[in-house]
């Protein structure tokens, strides 16, 4: 057997040896929908008729995009989710005040574990690969199909191997690594494929940075982005994970479609300019004046990200022409930031702090940009009109770069702002 992690997970789930390109039907461990993708899934499911009941223990419902309800239509969407949970006694429903961004909740609440097969009606479901799961985004209708059947059709993907070796420079983090890679291979560089990450740099990265890397694999078109699970993952899951799990690693002689090698020492803080995540330049060469800085999202809204930004913001003020919006990814992140005094640092620097939601990331709720406005953001997409008007611009960067840029009023390399150690 010379199988990659993705192939081994499908082999286990299907109970037979699978090969890339083969279409299989496989049992999934969990299916997640959010408030936006949930409504069409519930409608499709109800069309099946009264005889068919959902497999309630596999379903996770997490409202995060437009909650607390921003208007009457979004209130109806959130209501539909609540009602679906009640009607079918779905216990895994995370009401406003008990949850946060769906992907952070899936990880924090122990749904994600090595070797599991998880689908979610949200493209960033690929995030869970950071814990050694095979997880991928699907549509609403197929989520409804999984509600009923507990399984789904998959094309077993080919795999790419990314190897990163060496020590990272100060301020260079997971976000910079994945922006470097997307800049290199392009927004369709991993289309239909599973990316797997190896090397000493990845091994030494904290789990939160690994989560950022897996999260943005979809921005290269990947089906998922898997990191071999190790002690860091097992320790994180201890006392947290629901049920048992079986870590799956690649065979020693696994064959990959392509191999990519990177040296950590060559990487610097990066910025992805509009309108593609692959449009990257070093932050030091950007210099664009900004109106808004955004710290949050499933990509970079974890406590580690907030700590990094707070170290840079401590004792400083956000530039007079800039508003800094901070959105912790979950209730847990929010509580920790409060306890650690991080909120105090943010408030003293004149940042605005929001409750945990998807916030401004997708431009449909708060933090929306006016024509001509520019935002440096720790989110994952800088598509045309993503955060508001078609003539607004989003620049993707790390928490350190966003914090430093918020102080300077223009996009800078974080090393330009000296922080207190």
């Amino acid at each position, binding site marked *: 057997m010379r199988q990659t992690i993705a192939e081994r997970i499908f082999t286990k789930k299907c109970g037979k040896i699978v090969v890339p390109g083969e*279409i299989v039907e496989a049992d999934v461990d969990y299916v997640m929908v959010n408030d*936006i*993708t949930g*409504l*069409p899934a519930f*409608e*499709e499911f109800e*069309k*099946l*008729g009264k*005889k*068919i009941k959902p497999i309630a223990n596999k379903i996770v419902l997490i409202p995060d*995009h*437009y909650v607390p309800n921003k*208007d009457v*239509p*979004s209130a*109806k*969407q959130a209501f539909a989710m609540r009602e679906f949970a009640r009607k079918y006694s779905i216990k895994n429903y995370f009401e406003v005040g008990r949850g946060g961004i769906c992907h952070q909740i899936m990880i924090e609440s122990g749904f994600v574990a090595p070797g599991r097969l998880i689908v979610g*009606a*949200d*493209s960033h*479901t690929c995030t869970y690969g950071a814990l050694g799961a095979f997880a991928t*985004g*699907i*549509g*609403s*209708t*197929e989520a*409804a*199909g999984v509600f*009923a*059947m507990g399984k789904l*059709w998959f*094309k077993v993907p080919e795999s790419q191997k990314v190897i990163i070796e060496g020590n990272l420079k100060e301020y260079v983090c997971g976000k910079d690594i994945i922006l470097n890679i997307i800049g290199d291979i392009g*927004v*369709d560089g991993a*289309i*239909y494929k599973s990316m797997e990450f190896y090397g000493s740099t990845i091994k030494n990265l904290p789990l939160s940075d690994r989560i950022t890397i897996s999260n943005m694999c*979809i921005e290269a*078109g990947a*089906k998922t982005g898997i990191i071999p699970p190790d002690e860091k993952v097992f320790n994180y899951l201890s006392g947290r994970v629901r049920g048992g799990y079986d870590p799956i690693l690649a065979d020693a002689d696994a064959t990959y479609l392509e191999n990519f090698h990177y040296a950590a020492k060559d990487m610097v803080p990066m910025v992805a300019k509009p309108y*593609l995540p692959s449009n990257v330049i070093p932050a030091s060469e950007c210099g664009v004046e900004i109106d808004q800085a955004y710290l949050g999202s499933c990509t970079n809204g974890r406590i580690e990200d907030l700590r990094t930004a707070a170290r840079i913001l401590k004792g400083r003020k956000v530039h007079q022409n800039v508003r800094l919006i901070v959105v912790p990814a979950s209730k847990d992140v929010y509580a920790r930031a409060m306890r650690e005094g991080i909120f105090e640092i943010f408030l003293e620097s004149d940042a605005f702090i929001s409750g945990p939601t998807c916030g401004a990331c*997708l*431009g*449909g709720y708060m933090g929306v940009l006016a024509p001509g406005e520019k935002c440096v953001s720790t989110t994952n*997409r800088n*598509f*045309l*009109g*993503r955060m508001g008007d*078609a003539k607004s611009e989003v620049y993707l960067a790390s928490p350190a770069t966003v914090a430093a840029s918020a102080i300077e009023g223009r996009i800078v390399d974080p090393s330009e702002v000296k922080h207190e150690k």
Partner: protein
Amino acid sequence: MKNKMKGRAWRFKDNVDTDQVIPAEYLITGDPKELSKHVFEKVRPDFAGSVKVGDMIVGGKNFGCGSSREHAVRALMGAGISCVIAESFARIFYRNSINLCLPPVECTMEVKNGDLLDVDLVEGRIQNLTDGRLYSFRQFPSFAILIMQRGGLMRYVEDSCTE
């Protein structure tokens, strides 16, 4: 699923993302007709007003990248689009299209806005009736054909659950 279709082409470039197809602020319904009022609103404001039933989208590489929002496929279907042709598709958009029976045809072709196209899904052939050029494309995977012939994923699910 109709096997043969004729329609006017709407030409798009590489990397059309689903935020372009249907901006996030309209993701407050799953209704195709309602969504179609805002299809391509930010990038092609004339589209929703002038698209006709049967028209086709011709994109470049990586069509439908970004968000998993099935609303993108629903918005196109609500606008009357009969099929999407592209050099390559982002995978979630591709899956959504098959599951909802909007044929995603992988084909590289030269086409101008307004050209009349004749697509034969069974033969795997596209003719540009405006300039006469003929193109062939690879057949869909057999499982995708099964789903589209049954009328979409939910009919397949229904049959499987009641068997």
